[in-house]
């Protein structure tokens, strides 16, 4: 990825022009990130941020079905006409858990946990599965060969292969036959300073924010009350944490 200097020059010039518009766009809809460090569209991501989510399952009605529906609507997955139930895409699902001994029960939404050391990215032969500098784990479908090794490696069954040709995808969420996909933490939103769709739909039960910023709401909440990882034994240091599980 070589960057020619004239592109950089262009970017600097462009930033000036865009800055005003960007601010307007960011602030206007009232969905702006409450945390410091919210990103402008023109800004390059960096490892100064690590985006994460804290999900309070006790506060999510219906096991989080609402956030699943919001994700589906945002990205358009799950309605593949030809695929059977085992083949349909699932970026997020609600899982019911009942501890055998104590009979304690709870529901939680399970999606890509945006691991710091993501097994999917480790095993991907082409590097299509990768972790962005700001901690979001994505698939670069332009170089994904559809080998599904990442799906074998994921401890959360968070990834799906698209089993058929798709049409009329969402403009902000490209998806296509033969490539693997999963939760993107709504990068198209957070890159322009908006909240992920599930967070918006969660009625405050999901906090989104910067795990690296000790003053952010999510860091404060995690510090005060803790947050569990699914399969913490694997030591993946996930970006998605849970309370109430």
């Amino acid at each position, binding site marked *: 990825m070589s960057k020619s200097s004239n592109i950089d020059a262009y970017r600097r010039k462009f930033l000036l022009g865009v800055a005003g518009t960007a601010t307007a766009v960011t602030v206007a809809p009232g969905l702006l990130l409450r945390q410091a460090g919210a990103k402008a569209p023109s800004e390059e991501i960096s490892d100064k941020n690590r985006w994460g989510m804290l999900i309070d399952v006790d506060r999510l009605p219906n096991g989080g079905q609402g956030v699943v529906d919001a994700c589906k609507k945002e990205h358009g997955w799950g309605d593949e006409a030809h695929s059977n139930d085992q083949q349909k895409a699932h970026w997020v699902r609600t899982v019911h858990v009942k501890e055998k001994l104590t009979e304690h029960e709870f529901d939680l939404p399970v999606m890509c946990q945006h691991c710091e050391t993501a097994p999917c990215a480790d095993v991907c032969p082409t590097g299509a599965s990768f972790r962005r500098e700001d901690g979001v784990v994505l698939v670069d479908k332009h170089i994904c060969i559809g080998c599904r090794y990442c799906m074998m490696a994921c401890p959360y069954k968070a990834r799906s292969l698209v089993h058929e040709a798709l*049409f009329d995808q969402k403009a902000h969420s490209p998806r296509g036959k033969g490539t693997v996909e999963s939760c993107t933490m709504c990068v198209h939103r957070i890159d322009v300073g908006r909240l992920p769709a599930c967070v918006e739909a969660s009625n405050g039960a999901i906090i989104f924010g910067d795990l690296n910023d000790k003053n952010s709401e999510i860091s404060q909440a995690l510090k005060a009350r803790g947050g569990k990882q699914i399969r913490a034994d694997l030591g993946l240091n996930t970006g998605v944490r849970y309370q109430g599980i």
Partner: protein
Amino acid sequence: MFGKVHNIFVTIALLGLTTLLLTGCGDTPPEPRLETAKAKAEQCVEPTDVMRKDHMEFILHERDETMYEGIRSSKHSFKGCINCHIPAADAQGKPVNYLTADHDLNPEHFCATCHAYVGVKLNCFDCHSDNPEGAAPADSTHANVNGNGGVAHE
């Protein structure tokens, strides 16, 4: 003897190529469907001759910037191309897709006009949306395929 056979093949190949080239000469390049974009702006994001030559370079560069650096303000955005160049709806009020319902290249689609002519296959639309944001997808030619699964497509 081998040389002779070889020569015959070369001759046939050359003849074929010439015929192909001559056929090409007979055609005039199709007019790209620019009216949709022209209605929105006088000028594309770069001068026309630059765009003609380098549009894929711009898109590729933008793609990596967005994918890996999260930059979503580039004027060379793929979404930008689609939003400006593809009409929101055709005469019947339906979205203009890259492929027709019969999976042929749609001559109404700006990208398809040129790419069909130069014979360069595009696979952008395997994943990317081929019509402007907000152009009611429910009315699309493929809606029945993707939506309710009524029509199987081959």
